[in-house]
């Protein structure tokens, strides 16, 4: 119990004093995970919707694979991305290993299936509702996807936030491809792992509380920006 209390005190101290290192790694956490979320959403939202409205031969298999990939182990993703980006790997010439870009790549791979899968589930039901209307208006596929995406934006927000949650709390992959370099690739989760390794549980826990607060803050901010749950709108 003492350690948890010490963690609360440490978190409070870090936030009140606006510790320079804390601000830096917090901003980097946000930069990496929001970029990953942005890219993953751009890929996954249209793809999940397309999967809901199109019928093709391997549809079942694709959906099953997508659902299975939701549980993709981050450590394995990290290892594969590491081997690809290593100087001895196929993309070594790009020199991306141990940079925030490498961390974003790994996180995009981890959260894209999750967002696509939730999108597909949500869009399937919306499509059942819109099917007759959109067919009778003789819309193109592109128009159908756009309509569904726009009218289903509230549920898609949930999909995106689930992806963000997985990205911001992830440590296995970014530890391997980012390397947890101070002032370069250290983020909140890798800093927590480092402080735990030093046996400094209070500071580790303090950073943990900051991470949780950050996740809450981002969720509130996105809700506010997209004006959900307001009177007069659903």
């Amino acid at each position, binding site marked *: 119990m003492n350690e948890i209390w010490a963690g609360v005190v440490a978190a409070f101290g870090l936030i009140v004093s606006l510790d320079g290192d804390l601000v830096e790694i917090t901003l980097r956490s946000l930069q990496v995970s929001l970029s990953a979320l942005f890219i993953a959403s751009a890929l996954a939202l249209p793809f999940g919707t397309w999967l809901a409205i199109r019928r093709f031969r391997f549809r079942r298999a694709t959906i099953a694979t997508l659902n299975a990939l939701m549980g993709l182990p981050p450590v394995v993703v990290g290892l594969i991305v590491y081997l690809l980006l290593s*100087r001895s790997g196929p993309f070594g010439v790009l020199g991306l290993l141990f940079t925030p870009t490498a961390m974003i790549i790994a996180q995009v791979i981890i959260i894209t299936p999750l967002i696509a899968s939730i999108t597909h589930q949500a869009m399937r039901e919306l499509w059942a509702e819109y099917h007759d209307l959109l067919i009778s208006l003789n819309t193109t596929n592109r128009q159908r996807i756009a309509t569904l995406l726009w009218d289903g934006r509230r549920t898609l927000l949930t999909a995106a936030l689930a992806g963000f949650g997985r990205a911001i709390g992830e440590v296995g992959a970014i530890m391997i491809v980012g*390397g947890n370099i101070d002032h370069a690739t250290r983020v909140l989760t890798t800093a927590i792992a480092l402080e735990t390794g*030093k046996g400094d549980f209070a500071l580790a826990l303090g950073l943990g509380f900051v991470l949780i607060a950050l996740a809450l803050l981002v969720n509130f901010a996105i809700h506010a920006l997209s004006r959900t749950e307001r009177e007069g709108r659903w």
Partner: protein
Amino acid sequence: MMRILSVLLVLFAVQARAETMRLAVTTSFHNSGLSEVLLPAVRRDTGIEVQLLIVGTGQALRLGRAGDVDAILVHSKAAELEFVAQGFGTHRREIMYNDFVFVGPADDPAALAGAADAQDALRRIAAVRAAFVSRGDDSGTHRKEVSLWAAAGLDPQRFGAWYKAVGAGMGASLNTASGLEAYILADRASWLNFRNKGTLALLFAGDPVLFNQYAYLPVNPARHSHVRAAAARRLEAWLTSAAARDLINGYAIGQEQLFVFNADGTQD
């Protein structure tokens, strides 16, 4: 949409950077806290911003082989010599040493405090089958431990459940040992800096076989042309300078000197 974009743009604001190089170091080196003393001085004296990758010796050598770092600072002589012999590193330069210590529960069921030497200490642990945590991660500390067991004529592969190979860094392994009240081989620096000691205490140290030599190995630019060899050379010059000597020898935790500088050819 514009709001989200502007938020992203602010987050992506680029910062001006000094000359950087990447150095893979062992967890024991970093956990000791010495890096936090040396790196700012390196930055001040040479203008190089050293980016540390904190990994086990095995992974550090692997990163050097792949050319993912510009130099490595590790402590496993046999593996280092092989690294140089295979042409992955240009040379090996000894910098400093510290020592390994046996840590265990303060009530000391294996009576380690009375051991004659390191081999005797290990035999005592094995005799009473006291819980022992092994790094098990192919790090320098782990290799040292394996070589000590071999020297004592014992084979960890045949030990029972009391021998726990956790496959983790120094700090994480110490956490495990603290939780299990188990014996563990640790480097002195990590042990002194460790904050979660619990009932653990330092029980045996001082056998010369437990000395732990750190060496600096620049990655061979002939194999990896992108390696920042000039920066690696300047860092080596600094690490073997009088300034580094004074900082390393002067680094202490609670009056106790942790590292002994022993690089050749240092001039005042």
